[in-house]
């Protein structure tokens, strides 16, 4: 998906219609997911790799297997818990890398010399032409299936999104009188940019990062679904769905739907939080205007 | 007051109160506002920001904030606006009353042409397309736009603020309304342009015999332009007086304070007398007189109840201690 820009645009003008209930719900859900990932060894009833071929594809609610088993008889709940680790860490890595890069690029473009702006903006325009999933697939074609290459590719693919948003926010923020007044008071551009401008962009960046996290989660899971992502012995929610796909046809879709719904809920929760952050940015904007 | 008094006012506001729902209960925005405008008359509405000027005149067109509660009576050319149905309101807006807003650039849809803006109002009023176009060109000519036919095809972005405000005025007057509501029509413009717009408005008004409400925060401008000036503070009317009268001898301490606080351009350079505190919204005001916190004359009596408008000299003032001799 390459939709960060419109999503952000939408954020800027959107009223925060959903009540805090949804936001609190989202936060609680994410907290549960994170705790589950961290405490997987404590919570999981089985080893995620423990197979039992003769107990395969048990439906949810089967004795001893709350969420059933998959096609090699592994416990779906245990795999879901352990899978949360890579499913969350990998997009987190992508978001961190692209945010750090994007912030650097965006700030230099917005506040640095004109030539740097021209160069970086042009580079970002070009990078935009590669949809993130395409870049990730290209990386897989080059370096083979696995998580590392797509993660690097996605980090690069998301950088211009962050960069462009940071640039435009920084330009907007930079035209605020306070930034100019610091210049008049004798502060250096770098100081003002890092000490005042950047912290003021933080909520918007956090909102952007949350949205990007959702997209990265989807992109990485899509790759796993297509068999181009995570490879055994590692596993994430995407690869769980991929492995469970044939069973859908046996009329036993549970082991695919459980991780599928988990992905969906996680993305919705992350988006909700991101929008909430974004709408609070919008509020201060309105107060200022 | 030099114009003949028509027995039937085009706008009559009586005891208008307005509140909107807030986090904890309704938030009052206007309280007991009264206003009368007769045909051919210009009434000024003056006050600092947030005093409720815009809310008051927008009510006359039925443009109240979402989920607002109103009380009192607002009559435009015989129509009770607050209880009017959607169709009646539309008729009112199409034929009887028109409004000019502060920022012409925000008022005109920047994506469409000047012509489209003008024709739209006429078409809504039931004029057919060809006639509407002809009428629009004519109007542009009347408000002093050169090459009106060409201007019809141009976009707002190609006009200066002053020129655009002329277009807006042309649009407002296109349907020959009986009442014109001008909400700070010159605030966004240069001083020199302000004179042009004001003279355009007054001359057109005189020609058509409309009633006009002229909203401004500039007391001097109101005094110069209007037959009568209504001063608002914190959602209430505090004084009503003839323009020159108000200027010469303000009855309400707030009016006087405003005049004192404004540096003058003529006469000796007097020291400014600043008003302490800041203008309040109705919901923040203390009991009794809204202005008493900032008033030098106020005493305990002022806290007891909201003073009603009472005759004092040439004005009606809502004050227990009116009439301090003001700025000469």
């Amino acid at each position: 998906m390459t939709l960060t820009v419109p999503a952000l645009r939408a954020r800027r003008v959107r009223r925060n219609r959903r009540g805090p209930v949804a936001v609190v719900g989202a936060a609680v859900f994410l907290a549960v997911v994170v705790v589950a990932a961290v405490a997987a060894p404590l919570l999981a009833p089985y080893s995620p790799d423990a197979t039992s071929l003769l107990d395969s594809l048990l439906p949810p609610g089967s004795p001893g297997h709350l969420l059933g088993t998959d096609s090699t008889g592994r416990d779906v709940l245990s795999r879901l818990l352990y899978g949360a680790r890579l499913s969350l860490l990998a997009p987190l890595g992508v978001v961190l890398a692209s945010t750090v890069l994007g912030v650097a690029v965006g700030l230099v473009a917005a506040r640095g010399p004109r030539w740097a702006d021209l160069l970086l903006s042009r580079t970002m325009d070009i990078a935009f032409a590669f949809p993130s999933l395409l870049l990730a697939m290209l990386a897989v074609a080059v370096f083979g299936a696995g998580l590392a290459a797509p993660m690097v590719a996605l980090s690069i693919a998301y950088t211009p999104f962050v960069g462009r948003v940071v640039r435009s926010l920084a330009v907007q923020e930079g035209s605020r009188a306070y930034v100019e007044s610091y210049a008049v008071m004798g502060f250096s551009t770098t100081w003002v940019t890092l000490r005042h401008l950047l912290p003021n962009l933080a909520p918007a960046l956090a909102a952007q990062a949350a949205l990007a996290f959702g997209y990265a989660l989807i992109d990485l899971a899509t790759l796993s679904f297509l068999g181009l992502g995570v490879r055994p012995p590692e596993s994430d929610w995407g690869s769980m769905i991929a492995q469970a796909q044939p069973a859908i046809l046996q009329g036993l879709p549970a082991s695919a739907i459980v991780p599928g719904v988990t992905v969906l809920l996680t993305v919705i929760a992350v988006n909700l939080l991101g929008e909430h952050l974004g709408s609070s940015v919008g509020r201060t904007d309105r107060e200022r205007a | 007051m030099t114009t003949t008094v028509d027995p039937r006012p085009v706008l009559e506001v009586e005891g208008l109160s307005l509140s909107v729902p807030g986090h904890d209960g309704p938030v009052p925005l206007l309280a007991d506002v009264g206003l009368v405008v007769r045909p051919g008359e210009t009434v000024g509405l003056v006050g600092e920001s947030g005093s409720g000027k815009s809310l008051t005149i927008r009510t006359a067109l039925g443009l109240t904030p979402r989920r607002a509660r109103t009380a009192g009576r607002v009559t435009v050319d015989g129509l009770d606006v607050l209880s009017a149905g959607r169709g009646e309101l539309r008729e009112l807006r199409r034929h009887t009353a028109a409004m000019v807003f502060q920022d012409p650039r925000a008022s005109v849809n920047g994506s469409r042409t000047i012509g489209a803006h003008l024709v739209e109002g006429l078409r809504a009023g039931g004029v057919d397309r060809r006639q509407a176009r002809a009428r629009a060109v004519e109007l542009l000519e009347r408000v002093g736009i050169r090459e009106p036919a060409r201007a019809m095809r141009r976009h707002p972005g190609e006009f200066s603020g002053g020129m655009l405000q002329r277009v807006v005025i042309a649009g407002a007057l296109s349907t020959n309304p009986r009442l014109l509501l001008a909400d700070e029509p010159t605030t966004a413009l240069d001083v020199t342009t302000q004179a042009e717009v004001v003279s355009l408005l007054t001359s057109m008004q005189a020609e058509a015999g409309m009633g006009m409400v002229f909203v401004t925060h500039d007391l001097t401008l109101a005094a110069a332009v209007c037959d009568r000036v209504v001063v608002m503070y914190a959602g209430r009317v505090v004084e009503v007086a003839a323009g020159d009268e108000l200027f010469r001898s303000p009855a309400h301490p707030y009016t006087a304070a405003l005049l004192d606080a404004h540096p003058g351009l003529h006469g000796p350079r007097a020291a400014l007398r600043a008003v302490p505190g800041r203008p309040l919204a109705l919901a923040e005001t203390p009991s009794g007189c809204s202005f008493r916190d900032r008033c030098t004359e106020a005493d305990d009596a002022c806290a007891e109840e909201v003073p009603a408008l009472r005759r004092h000299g040439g004005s009606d003032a809502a004050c227990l201690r009116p009439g301090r001799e003001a700025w000469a």
Partner: protein
Amino acid sequence: MSGTETGPVLQVTGLRKTYGSAVAIDGVDFTLERGGSLGIVGESGSGKTTTARILVGLERATAGQVLLDGEDVTTPSRRDRRRRARSIQMIFQDPYLSFDPRLTVEESIAEPLRLHGHGDRARIRATVATLCDQVGLSTRNAAALPRDLSGGQRQRAAIARALGIEPRVLVLDEAVAALDVSIQAQVLTLLDRIRRDTGVSYVFVSHDLAVVRYATDTVLVMRHGAVVEEGGTEQVLSAPRHPYTQLLLASVPAPGWDPAAVAAANRALAPADRG
């Protein structure tokens, strides 16, 4: 104040600024005496802000010279940034936007003090308190975030912050335009008092002639980027010589004001501006 030199504190000659083919200002000259107050008036787009921004180094002049205390500061350079800051400061039109929204007013005022080496933590705290007192901000106001203050209070805070650097010149670009009349008077009287107390000089940019009359000694009337008239404020306003100045004055509403006549005069002055 620390200025010991004699002669004008600010001297501007032949200032010119172009944006591409558009000329923002052309040939602006003036001098500002120590402790004096110079007004710049003119219609929108006449180049007032551009001039002010060049003075404080936010904009680079295309041509001309700015002498601050006899020192050429025309081209802003990274190195001189702090030195210039100590001599000249600016107050912006919108007091809300001129603060970092995350910092309390105190913190904002303290920051430049730290940069310019105004002593240790305790001394800076004391200085901030003095400054707040000077502009009439209570301790509670000082501990508040900008968004919790009224427009007038914010503008006071901005003034306090600028004064902390002890500049010799304060440039005010429409510093009272966004304020309500009652508040505007508060700020104008404050500015007046500060000038008397500290001997700082003002460059006071405004489109409001009455305000300029109150706040300045000398005035510059600008139109289309050029100075059309200058002189003592009282004199220029009571006996304007240039037709544009006359028009400006006539445009200000007053009892018995005739907008139609003003409009006619405006049309006569600039027939090309129409349509």
